[in-house]
């Protein structure tokens, strides 16, 4: 709550910069509810860290799942005038934020996951999720024919489970397929959709069907909470899976080999830090790809321990090519 953070001493921020840090009130508007283990939670972690390290006062407001509530929800924050900066994201908010930002010119906004340029009070950042998914696809392709991994079979089939059959999810799928084909054009991808992002039992059933009947040995979770069913299914069968959005490697060590992370938390923290130092470039959009650390595979100790060296090396190589721009990943969006 507010009571706690006001007592946080300002000197918790990095020394030297404390002097330039001003007392900031920020709000984080969630156009949905927390607990998606994805964007929203990740950004929440970012603002939380910001409040701890920078002494910013952060108020999180959940707008709920009814889209009609979002314009009013955001506007009520902007019109209150209580907040120096409002953090929010997702492409569903693009038109809404444009409208509100024009009408509340003094209000500053930090916007993630969709590009907005030309509005002097909005800073936006985007993540090349297709690049991240490309890495996940390449990783899966390397795993599925691996001889070192016990759960891998010789068949060149990998799985994909999406929450809904919608563009944002299909962009993940497109990147995933490109990555897999890049490694081996003969790989085929089995894709299924849960229908929502909550029905974990159904997610698990779909995954079980993929693993059991389609010779899938590694599958990519792009179904939020429902996708946790996939991770569990993979673990229960001794097969593999790839987590999404945040680092899910620890959920089932040895089965969740890696996760495709979008570092929204870091980027939000970074943006707020810059803001506190008056160095944030409002009016601009920044693209955070593999190179910028905006997206990538989670390479933690578990990754190092469980993923064969050969695959790790190959992944490094592909990442390098992406960074250099030698590989171009197509996006289905726009």
């Amino acid at each position, binding site marked *: *709550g507010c009571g706690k953070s006001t007592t946080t001493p300002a000197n918790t921020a990095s020394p030297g910069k404390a002097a330039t840090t001003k007392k900031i009130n920020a709000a984080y508007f969630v156009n949905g509810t927390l607990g998606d283990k994805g964007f929203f939670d990740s950004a929440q972690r970012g603002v939380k860290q910001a409040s701890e390290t920078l002494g910013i006062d952060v108020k999180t407001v959940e707008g709920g799942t009814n889209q009609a509530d979002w314009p009013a929800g955001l506007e009520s924050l902007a019109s209150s005038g209580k907040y120096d900066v409002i953090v929010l994201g997702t492409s569903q908010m693009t038109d809404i934020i444009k409208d509100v930002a024009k009408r509340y010119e003094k209000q500053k906004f930090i916007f993630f996951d969709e590009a907005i340029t030309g509005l002097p009070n909005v800073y936006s950042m985007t993540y090349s999720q297709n690049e991240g998914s490309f890495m996940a696809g390449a990783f899966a392709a390397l795993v599925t024919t691996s001889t070192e991994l016990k759960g891998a079979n010789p068949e060149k089939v990998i799985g994909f489970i999406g929450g809904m059959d919608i563009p944002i999810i299909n962009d993940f799928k497109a990147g995933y397929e490109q990555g897999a084909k890049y490694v081996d054009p003969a790989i085929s991808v089995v894709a299924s959709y849960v229908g929502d992002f909550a029905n974990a039992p159904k997610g698990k059933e779909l995954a079980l069907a993929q693993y059991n009947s389609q010779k899938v040995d590694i599958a990519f979770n792009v179904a939020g909470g429902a996708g946790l069913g996939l991770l569990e299914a993979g673990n229960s069968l001794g097969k593999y899976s790839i987590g999404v959005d945040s680092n899910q490697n620890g959920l089932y060590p040895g089965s969740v080999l890696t996760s495709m992370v979008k570092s929204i938390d870091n980027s939000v923290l970074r943006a707020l830090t810059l803001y506190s130092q008056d160095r944030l470039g409002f009016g601009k959009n920044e693209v955070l790809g593999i190179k910028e650390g905006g997206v990538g595979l989670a390479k933690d100790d578990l990754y190092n321990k469980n993923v064969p060296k050969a695959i790790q090396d190959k992944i490094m190589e592909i990442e390098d090519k992406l960074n250099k721009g030698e590989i171009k990943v197509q996006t289905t*969006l726009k």
Partner: protein
Amino acid sequence: MNTRQAIYLEITGIIAAAIMAILCGFIIIMFSSQQPMEAISSFLGGPLSGAFNIGTILNKAVPLIFTGLALSVVFQCGVFSMGAEGQLYVGAFVGSLVAVYVHGLPAWILLPLVLLCAMAGGALYGAVPGWLKTKWNANEIVTTLMLNFVAILTTSYLVNNVFKDPASGGYARMHYVGDGAKLGKIFAGFPAHYGVLIALLAAVVVYLLMYKTRSGYEMRLVGKNSRFANYGGISTKRVVIVSVMISGALAGLAGIVEILGVHGTYKDNFSSGLGFDGIIIALLARNHPIGVVAVSLFYAYLQVGATQMQVGSDVPRELAIIIQVMLVLFVSSQAIFTYLKQKFALRQKAVN
């Protein structure tokens, strides 16, 4: 007891119920919040503080009024439809297609055309369970629940794959509708859009329809005693079909007005349960159209209150919603009203 006293009693009952609910909510808040007073005051006072919040209440009440009316019509006719959600999607989708793809018409033709098409879409979709019921006596609760899923999935497929605006990015929507078909703000600087007026108009029309016309008389009679209606020469099957179609048309209106007034175009999955809220609204209003307006405003007030409590205190969203639910439960308690009436009757006796 005359009508005036009855109204007083009703109001006293509502106030008593609200006080009980707030006490209950307060107890919950005490356990979980550091700022109980702020929470309560932002919950109750927040929604009425400022033109912006008041306008928001009005806007939120609009789709509730439509779906509440939609369901009150079928409920009065004795059909327990849960299908407003699906009809709302179909209506909104059809209406949006017209709004997005028909060009070159002046606004005063286009807008009514869009609304009419939405109503037609909802009505036709509503006719399906009505037909299944009258033809084969297929339970309408089952068919409407299932048809909701069918409508949501079908429209989702279409907007994602056929009618998607390529510029819409990760979440599919159609092209934005032109200004001609939009429902603008009634006053500059006040959020309420013209849908508010349409909703009020719809409530009056439904009131007149249900209580002042022959069709309304027939529908209510069929709902109350279909044997009697049949004996009186009323074709109950026809009346049932008519009522589900009127209901579907109103649900379709709910959808298209929300699109034109709030979203600006058809967005995938835009409703999230407005059709189900309508069921609660209609039941709370005891199926009376004017009651539907009052209850919708109350419901919208509670929803805005729940958001305001989240903004104005440390109470999380879930708790705010639980308190909102408590209020609804207490206010819909018949027992409290009966109790008051009995007390009243006893007092009257003592006086006499």
